[in-house]
């Protein structure tokens, strides 16, 4: 375990997971154009569907205590097949990193400072992330509860301030959309924010105590999902139909707040929340990409790769999509499919094989 520095405890893992999921709050409105006012239902369904998968991830981590995904692959699939799967995973992590960096750039260019070129945001953000990752996992784990607290504070605060605008009849009639659309939207929610927590298979080896990893992983997952649900409910109930044409309904909703003449125009608070949650998410992805590459190549430290990998990720973020339209289209129609093996197939299969072959073979306790 020479590449991993620092230990995190269970509650830090929980907050990291929640924060990681909240980083997606900007992009969850992807599926609003499919699910419309039933998006809350899609989120709820996806949450229920994803619980077994999340448990599967944590069970895998618990079974192979202190081993990360790359090592697990090696053990289960042998060194050749395992390496190939690991490389596929690294590509996936890498894409996630790039896409999230791009998402941040899109958000700032679209909503906060439209005249500034996108690369500026991405590069500066990546620099701060690189600095954080250079300090290892600990600093981000330590500030994750602050970001979650902040996010919860903002979400409840805006909900209360918007209370007079909330109209729950916007959700009626319940479940109006065709079943195919519903499945697609559930799939989007499951694949994009929810089951991305799979990447924590690279973080969980740094835990200092594996006893209650299932519980905390699930708690973090539930906290993140709950926040996303509340955001979605807030936006739909406040904005009504116009939230479905909005590219970023969460931001648009907060722009409505107007209490008195003075307590208004507080959307920067939301922008800050989005930024810091995305910060944690990108840092985790960055760390994971680096750690998995370092583990695969058996390097002494992942820190030497921080800058080259960051550089590649930034360029990929620039060139990934031509436009926000192709981004949305691809995310809705393709992204959800190529993530299936990573999220829904390989981890359960790994767990199954591990159980059948009674891996890991060392005399370690059989926990499950």
């Amino acid at each position, binding site marked *: 375990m020479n590449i991993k520095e620092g230990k995190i405890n269970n509650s830090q893992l929980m907050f990291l997971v929640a924060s990681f999921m909240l980083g997606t709050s900007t992009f969850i409105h992807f599926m609003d154009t499919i699910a419309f006012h039933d998006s809350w239902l899609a989120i709820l369904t996806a949450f229920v569907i994803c619980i077994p998968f999340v448990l599967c991830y944590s069970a895998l981590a618990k079974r192979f205590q202190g081993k990360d995904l790359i090592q697990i692959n090696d053990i289960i699939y042998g060194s050749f097949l395992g390496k190939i799967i690991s490389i596929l995973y690294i590509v996936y992590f890498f894409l996630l990193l790039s896409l999230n960096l791009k998402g941040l750039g899109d958000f700032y260019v679209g909503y906060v400072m439209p005249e500034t070129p996108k690369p500026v945001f991405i590069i500066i953000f990546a620099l701060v992330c690189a600095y954080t990752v250079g300090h290892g996992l600990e600093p981000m784990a330590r500030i994750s509860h602050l970001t979650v607290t902040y996010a919860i504070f903002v979400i409840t605060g805006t909900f209360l301030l918007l209370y007079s605008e909330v109209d729950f009849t916007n959700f009626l*009639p319940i479940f109006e959309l065709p079943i195919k659309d519903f499945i697609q939207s559930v799939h989007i929610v499951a694949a994009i924010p929810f089951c991305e927590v799979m990447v924590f298979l690279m973080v969980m080896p740094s835990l200092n105590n594996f006893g209650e990893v299932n519980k905390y992983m699930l708690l973090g997952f539930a906290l993140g999902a709950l926040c996303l649900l509340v955001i979605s409910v807030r936006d739909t109930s406040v904005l*009504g139909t116009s939230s479905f044409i909005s590219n970023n309904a969460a931001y648009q909703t907060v722009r409505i707040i107007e209490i008195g003449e003075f307590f208004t125009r507080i959307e920067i608070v939301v922008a800050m929340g989005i930024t810091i949650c995305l910060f944690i998410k990108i840092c985790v992805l960055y760390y994971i990409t680096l750690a998995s590459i370092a583990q695969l190549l058996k390097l002494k430290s992942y820190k030497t790769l921080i800058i080259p990998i960051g550089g590649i990720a930034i360029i990929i973020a620039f060139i990934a999509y031509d436009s926000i339209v192709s981004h949305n289209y691809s995310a809705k129609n393709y992204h959800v499919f190529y993530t299936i093996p990573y999220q829904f197939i390989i981890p359960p299969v790994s767990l199954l094989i591990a159980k059948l072959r009674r891996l890991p073979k060392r005399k370690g306790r059989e926990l499950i």
Partner: protein
Amino acid sequence: MKKRMIILFKILISTVILFNLTGCWNANELNTLPIVVGIGIDKAPSDEEVQVVAQIIKPQELQGSLGSSDGGGEAYWNLTSTGETIFDAIREMTHESSGRLYTAHNQIIVIGNKIASEGVQKYLDFFMRAHETRPNTLIVISSNTSTEILDTKPELTRIPAESITRLSEAQEIQSHSKKVTFQDFTNYLMSKTTSPVAPLITSLKDKETSTLKIEGMAIFKGDQMVGQLDESESRGLLWVTGDIKTGALVVPYKNEVVTLEIINAKRKITPKIQGDNIYIHVEIKEEGKIVEQTSKENLATLQDFEELKKVQNEAIKSEILSALNKAQELNTDIFGFGEEIHKKYKEEWKEISSNWDKIFPSIEVEIEIQSSIDSTGKISHPAVPQSLE
């Protein structure tokens, strides 16, 4: 330690390099920023283009108003330009203004009568799309041109746009009209059946002075203005949409009139489908109080109160009916009955929504009003000589 220092140094260097290379992009100094507070949209004389009026504040003149009562000139500047689209026209203004117009503080969009009757959708798209404009911006429809409205010098404030905003917000005191934000308007526009409404504003011209007045509401069919509601019809609409805050209700009673103030009003709309018939059941609960009476009689008796309640019910009902008649006449569902049906009967909705234009004019609306009178104010009897009683 050393390493940390180097990273810090690197970040600093790259920041400085970036800064030098590209400069500050979004930077605008406050004192060079033309702040737009109101936008008016009209048909250009050439009829193919759109004419946009932007009201820009002059901060230095506003400053003058803080110190002395008579600041030099106007505190605003109305800039007019034409273009094929709104954005085009606004950017055209750069030829005359000192900088890029800053519309984030735009408070009101005044739409000229001609534009409104032709269709507003294509002109509002820019305001939905632009990142600066806010969903709270108010929309008013001018009975004439918007330039005229924005040119009317207000008495209480120094900026017309501000005075229109306040005027529009003050409508809830009498509930003869309501403020319509951009957000509401968009939601109505996007609905299959519901038609948008917006307050209608006119400029009353005297020989010397001119003032602004909100006269009822403009009603749309789709995105085209098709008619207008007068004041009592507007209130009839607001009863059904649940936007009544307060207001005066003058009811005839025993050959004299009693003025009741609306304190509290709630509404409930329940659609019913029985066979092929569609009913809308509107239930209104109202609470009023006697604020004025012209008769010399003592109305603070149980029988009178019962009577008054009935009269009050009638008054409310007639307001609602007048609005309903107007709406059915023009075939515009300003009440949102369609959406109510949609929310309750999602299976039947597909069929109904395609035939809505045929259904709505003949839809049956049952109005049930439960009003109450809460108090008689500070006095119970009117102050009359004892002998007359």
